[in-house]
């Protein structure tokens, strides 16, 4: 992983309880920027999001939000990441559930998922929750690392 030079947090408001797909907002500051890593917030580290002060949307193995998938489109319209489970990005997650289980991420990148530097068109990227989030006023918080 290269040293961090830039990062910013983006939030995807998921305010409709019955919707299953939530488009990402336009992020003018990230237009033309090559994204090098994305980290998702986990419930244990982020009870409320920073910008919108909403409850963080996380992948909860207890079934509240059974599975959350992310699709990112590059600046050529190609969905270079299609349905990536959010849990892949929540490297800080430590989930206490029934039976004192713990969710560990033991991938080969020491946690943070490093992306081959790619310009992302956030307006064509979205969050997909197959079962619906079931409650209103959640927000998915992503920390985006990028090159100058």
């Amino acid at each position, binding site marked *: 992983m290269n040293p961090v030079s830039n990062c910013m947090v983006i939030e995807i408001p998921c305010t409709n309880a019955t919707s299953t797909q939530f488009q990402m907002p336009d992020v003018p500051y990230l237009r033309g920027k090559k994204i090098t890593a994305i980290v998702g917030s986990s419930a244990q580290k982020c009870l409320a999001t920073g910008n919108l002060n909403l409850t963080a949307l996380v*992948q909860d193995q207890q079934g509240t939000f059974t599975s959350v998938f992310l699709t990112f489109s590059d600046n050529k319209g190609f969905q270079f990441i*299609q349905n990536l*489970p959010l849990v*892949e990005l929540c490297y800080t997650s430590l989930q206490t559930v029934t039976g004192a289980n713990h*969710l560990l991420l033991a991938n080969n990148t020491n946690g943070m998922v490093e992306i081959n530097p790619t310009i992302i068109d956030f307006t064509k990227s979205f969050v997909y929750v197959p079962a619906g989030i079931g409650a209103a006023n959640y927000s998915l918080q992503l920390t985006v690392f990028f090159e100058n």
Partner: protein
Amino acid sequence: MNSQYNKLYNFQFVAIKFTAIANQYYFPDIPMLRDRKVYKINTYFASTLPKDNNNTTVVGINTNTSNPYTNTDSNYYLTLYINGMEKIKSLDMNLLNTIQAPKNNFSNSGSLFLTPTTIDFSKSYVQQSFGTTAMVPPLSFAFGIYYL
């Protein structure tokens, strides 16, 4: 492992949905991955990804024990058809399980890194060894396919 391929270049989520118990469960045809070189594969079980992107329940593994190699539940084996032969033959899918949520903080070994190669998914399949807990379809096997 090869650090060059720790980066995420392209990602495709793939699910093998089945509605009846069988000996082999074949991958669907994945047009997106034809002629693309796959460099990493991982799998998800229900403990970390309860539902696939079609809201089908993902198969579980080792939910009642801390040691996946001495348990009595099912185990799954992956065969990949590469260059006209089954080059990856009956690989224990525990070895592809990046993220685990078993008891006692056990974590598995991580993703399967491949020399970047084209896989004929329509001839690749999963086999199951039956444990004491019978599976009740519809269920699905969930994979993350990383490709160049």
